[in-house]
């Protein structure tokens, strides 16, 4: 789960990380009020969960409350990479002397939480990592002793932090670590951490990602989940315990197991089609979960054919077949479907679907070839 900039910075602030004064506004008038209370120049920043807001015109400086209202009016409602801006953060503008990157990530290869720092702050850290990896300093943190002041000092020296700011830097790095651990984060970054004109450190931008597996013990954070920014069907899928990712193609897929789901998408592509989604119905899929999954797949208007690929282990093919039938009964305009059911209770499953006028296939390759063919026919039919 991704947190917005303003949410991330508020979490950081609770752990002693200094952030600019500011507040969130959902209307231009509110933005004006915030700017008035803050006084002086402000920055109006689009709150959308996507990178590159600045380049897209979603971050603007305003000298006066009137101008803040004007900028907010331009930014609110703006479409940034497919996301509509519903909120802006109005922050006191910082006097920037220097920009640093400071972040905590989970390093899968090292199996440690790692503190990353770079004197090349303010830019896309992935670009820095790709072009000049030597400019990124990494310090791995032992889970049994946690983050230690000497490690903060080591980082401060590597980043050439002015001596008079070392103590403040240590406090910020430790605070970021505490925020990361207490929030079950998988990413927490300050980019940039600014050295201001009057020699202070300030977290001007922030980002946090929370581990979905730990949300159960983070009730305060899960309440922040921004449904507006989330694909409504992905949210619906989550309610049913389904794993769904919307893609751009035309062939809907329902598969059990994540690896097999990906392999099924790859097969559709290999045979010249384009998958509309990833959907794992999970182990032991019950009839109503299957029905919900089919509803979600068909709610995507791009879908013109559906492939079911079920390898029954714990999942029973008859149960899946009943779910498909139940869903078909309530749907008005069913698209052509290809079903491959193998494994536990496959005979019963096929018998249940015998009258449903669905194409069947014995192998994954055959299923992929057939669904690509019916999708093409469906597309030609809709064009004519």
């Amino acid at each position, binding site marked *: 789960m991704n947190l917005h900039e303003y949410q991330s910075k508020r979490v950081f602030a609770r752990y002693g990380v200094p952030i600019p004064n500011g507040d969130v506004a959902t209307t231009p008038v509110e933005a004006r009020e915030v700017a008035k209370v803050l006084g002086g120049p402000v920055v109006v920043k689009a709150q959308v969960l996507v990178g590159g807001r600045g380049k897209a015109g979603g971050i603007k400086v305003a000298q006066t409350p009137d101008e803040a209202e004007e900028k907010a009016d331009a930014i609110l409602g703006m479409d940034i990479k497919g996301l509509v801006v519903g909120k802006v953060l109005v922050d006191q503008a910082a006097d920037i002397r220097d920009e640093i990157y400071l972040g905590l990530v*989970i390093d*899968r*290869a090292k*199996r*440690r*939480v790692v503190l990353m720092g770079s004197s090349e702050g303010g830019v896309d850290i*992935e670009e820095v*990592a*790709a072009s000049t990896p030597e400019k990124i300093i990494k310090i791995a943190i*032992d*889970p*049994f002793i946690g983050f230690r002041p000497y490690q903060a000092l080591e980082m401060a020296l590597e980043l050439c932090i002015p001596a008079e700011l070392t103590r403040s830097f240590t406090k910020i790095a430790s605070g970021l670590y505490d925020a990361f*651990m207490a929030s*079950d984060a*998988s990413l927490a970054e300050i980019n940039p951490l600014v050295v201001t004109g009057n020699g202070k450190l300030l977290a001007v931008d922030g980002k946090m990602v929370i*581990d*979905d*597996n*730990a949300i*159960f*013990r983070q009730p305060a954070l899960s309440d922040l989940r921004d449904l507006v920014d989330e694909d409504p069907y992905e949210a619906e899928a989550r309610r049913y315990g389904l*794993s769904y*990712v919307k*893609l751009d193609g035309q062939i809907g897929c329902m*598969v*059990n*197991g*994540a*690896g*097999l*789901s*990906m*392999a099924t*998408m*790859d*097969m*559709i*592509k*290999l045979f010249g089609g384009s*998958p509309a989604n*990833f959907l*794992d119905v999970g*182990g032991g899929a019950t009839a109503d979960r299957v029905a919900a999954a089919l509803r979600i797949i068909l709610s995507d208007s791009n879908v013109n054919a559906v492939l079911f690929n079920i*390898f*029954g*282990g*714990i999942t029973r093919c008859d149960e899946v077949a009943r779910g498909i039938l139940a869903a078909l009964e309530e749907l008005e305009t069913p698209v052509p479907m290809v079903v491959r059911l*193998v*494994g*536990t209770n496959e005979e019963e499953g096929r018998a249940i679907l015998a009258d449903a006028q669905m194409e069947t296939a014995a*192998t*994954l*390759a055959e299923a992929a070839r057939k669904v690509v063919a019916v999708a093409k026919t469906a597309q030609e039919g809709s064009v004519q």
Partner: protein
Amino acid sequence: MSILVNKDTRLLVQGITGREGLFHTEQMVAYGTNVVGGVTPGKGGQWAAGVPVFDTVVKAVSATEANTSIIYVPARFAPDAILEAVDAGIKLIICITEGLPTLDMITVRAYIDGRDVRLIGPNCPGVITPNEAKVGIMPGHIHIPGNVGIVSRSGTLTYEVVAALTERGIGQSTAVGIGGDPIIGSTFIDVLKLFEKDNDTEQVVMIGEIGGTDEEKAAEYIRDHMTKPVTGFIAGKTAPPGKRMGHAGAIISGGTGTAAEKMAALEAAGVRVANQPAEIAEIVAALAGE
């Protein structure tokens, strides 16, 4: 021989009285696995699936001499269940449970490293040595004994491959699901090492997916240390970056972890990489000289 589990496995089921735990214990017993007991706190003294239930792993081990445990307890209790098994002296722990918090797994893994214990999973289908021991949730009947070792991050995709091999009459020495999480107990390399040493394994199938760099590291190991042929497959060629594809670990982030990189690394290491799952059995059959 075989790896990890066999006729000498004395299996303890942690979470034996839960819905999943009980169902799969019955299935494992029916397969012929030597299940010696189970653990559910507060239910010590009861019986489940024909075996005694204990309150703690320590009590179960002293009563049954269990050497392996399988974990079905819910995600929020699973890290504790793993640590409890480690401290009770279990040598092989297989965690089926999905959804363990990543930070907990970092601690668990750090605790295990340097100790004489092996963890498989979490978020995995388990391990099976056909006709000897099924320690997991895979459908047993699709496996037959033989000389192909299988190691995979996926569940059902592995069943698909196993079924295709069995259909051709090609048996398996052991099939190991290492799990789909970002932090797991045993990686591809850990299992490849075991297959390389195992007399019953003549060749290996390795099924990877997007996310992380474990396949790339495995490729280096294969190039430098494996004498047995390896056939590979990577799922997720069409997966978009930044999206988690079902498994917590199946995500392309920061431009790393793509299927293309992994396939290239494996090919460069001499691994025959199949373009689609059905090709795996074909390549394996050709290597077996059929």
